[in-house]
């Protein structure tokens, strides 16, 4: 069973916030655990999405409104503040498409990345290493398999696309046959949005996988149901996983409006850097953001609880069986069976079920092999 795990990509235009951390940990756990059971791939290409207005528009803003930013030294927080400035301007005066074209062209031609976003990605590589996240190639150039026009042609052949550009209208994704409303995926001049980018990337990959797992923010559910229907119509078997964002003091804030450093991954590193050994810290972060917060957004982020969870992770790792080679070997034999119990009958492992199971008090848990293979 070959599984493709395809989450929403975080654009390199800001610091990684708490919701991003939650999403990255969920997907990382899903991928690494599923990989122990079956052939799994993790789809994550910044190149694909750097043509969107969100990213290309920010780059244009940087060069026009903030030409003196030193990309070699700026911090994520600096970039986040600039991004807030861009979003404020874009709400008042959207960037003309003509101004975006040089950036889009450079991405399409060579996978070009603006120096400021390259700096952000370099910083993220450090964060990934600190958290022990698998790097799916965040600094690599990975163009989507289809050009936009190829994707439109293919979708139109299946009756899934309504291209009104000849009549001065946009390009719509059309799953009206399944009761879903038309959804714009490109402007009348052919500038695609993130959904079109996702399709350019996903469509050519679908025949290679028996299962596709789409992981997305809950607020994108409508779009992802549509994406699910489109991929299903094209022959894929799709499962969606929707994650709520992480509230702070009961409020979910978008990075478009700015994020305090203490609520970014860099801020968490400031707080927890010396709090526990790396293995405990990585396990604790996953226990908190996956099992503690769950898929929903009912619980606000609590630094004290995160710290307690890291402490608990340290105790778990130091608990019975630690350093016991025979116990670890026995447990390793159980790992596959243990993981399989947490798939919910699907091809991929459910990060919530698996991570919650690590906390079970009265069941044997292959903690050390899993901590090594999945949680650190």
């Amino acid at each position, binding site marked *: 069973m070959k599984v493709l795990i395809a989450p929403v990509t975080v654009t390199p235009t800001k610091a990684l916030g708490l919701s991003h951390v939650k999403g990255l940990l969920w997907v990382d756990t899903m991928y690494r655990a599923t990989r122990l059971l079956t052939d799994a791939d993790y789809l994550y290409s910044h190149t694909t999405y750097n043509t969107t207005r969100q990213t290309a528009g920010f780059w244009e803003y940087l060069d026009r409104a903030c030409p003196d930013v030193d990309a070699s030294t700026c911090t994520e927080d600096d970039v986040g503040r600039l991004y807030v400035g861009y979003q404020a301007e874009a709400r008042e005066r959207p960037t003309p498409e003509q101004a975006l074209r040089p950036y889009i062209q450079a991405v399409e031609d060579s996978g070009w990345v603006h120096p400021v976003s390259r700096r952000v990605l370099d910083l993220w590589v450090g964060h990934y290493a600190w958290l022990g996240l698998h790097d799916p190639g965040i600094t690599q150039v990975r163009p989507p398999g289809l050009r936009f026009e190829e994707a439109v042609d293919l979708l139109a052949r299946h009756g899934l696309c309504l291209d009104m550009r000849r009549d*001065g209208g946009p390009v719509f994704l059309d799953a009206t046959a399944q009761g879903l409303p038309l959804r*714009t995926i490109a402007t009348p001049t052919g500038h695609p949005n993130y959904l079109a980018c996702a399709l350019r990337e996903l469509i050519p990959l679908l025949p290679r996988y028996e299962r596709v797992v789409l992981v997305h923010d809950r607020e994108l559910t409508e779009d992802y149901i549509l994406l699910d229907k489109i991929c299903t119509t094209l022959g894929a078997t799709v499962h969606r996983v929707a994650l709520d964002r992480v509230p702070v003091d009961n409020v979910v804030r978008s990075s478009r409006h700015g994020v305090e450093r203490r609520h970014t991954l860099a801020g968490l590193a400031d707080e927890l850097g010396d709090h526990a050994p790396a293995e405990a810290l990585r396990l604790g972060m996953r226990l908190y953001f996956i099992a503690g917060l769950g898929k929903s957004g009912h619980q606000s982020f609590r630094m004290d609880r995160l710290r307690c969870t890291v402490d608990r992770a340290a105790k778990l790792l130091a608990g019975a069986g630690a350093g016991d080679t025979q116990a670890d070997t026995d447990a390793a034999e159980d790992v596959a069976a243990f993981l399989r119990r947490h798939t919910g009958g699907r091809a991929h492992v459910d990060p919530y079920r698996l991570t919650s199971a690590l906390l079970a008090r009265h069941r044997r848990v292959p903690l050390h092999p899993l901590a090594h293979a999945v949680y650190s």
Partner: protein
Amino acid sequence: MLTQQYLRTKAISRIKNAHAGLGPGADIPEKAGWHATLQQAPTTTVTVVMREFDPAAFAQSALDYATSLPGNLRETWLQACTRTVFLAGRPANLVSRFRFHHISDNSSMAWTAPAPASEQTALRRLLKLFPAADLPALPPTMTARVPGTPLTAEAQLDVATARVSGADYLVHVHHLLAEAVLTGRIRPGTRLTARHIPTLDGAAHHYAMLRIAPDPTARERLRAYAGLVVPGSPAGSTHRGPWAQKSPCATG
């Protein structure tokens, strides 16, 4: 000449006739508020789903649709201010969920029967309005035929193209053709030649029917967007015939 006074007289006459169809109580102002009255909320809606803008196929399909309406639906249309809503969509994707009265021969357009707008809400929620962009290049002339036994009868349709969007073009042409058929102004088998011209020339032609609507680019002014010339119709015939008896509002 298509003077403002002439257009206004014609427009008010049409509203009166439509209101007569609505029964007592559907009063309209004689002098004040006529402009707003032209844009009042319609009572009946026809929704047209279009995959693309193809003026020749559209004109033919509009004639086919109007001809296919049975007597009771013709009455529904004529006795109300009928609004036509044009939506972008693929009819083929919708036929399993929605009931259409007519689908064009090339399957690129589909029409609902005239009905209260609320009956078409679900369809409208799925789709978007047809783009109101500039008109694309149009052929100078095109032909269509009213379904039925071929006759030697001919008619000419003049369509204004200056300062008219693609969406407005659809509304104006559709109203004029549909009403020309429904009122019997053009009979089954008639060969229709349509001309695309910047503006209608009232001095050169005696229009048997006019599509009159407010000019969005000139406040409080009316404009003739389409006109039907029927050879043999005497000058001033626009004041007579079934058209003058029962005609819907000029709203789109």
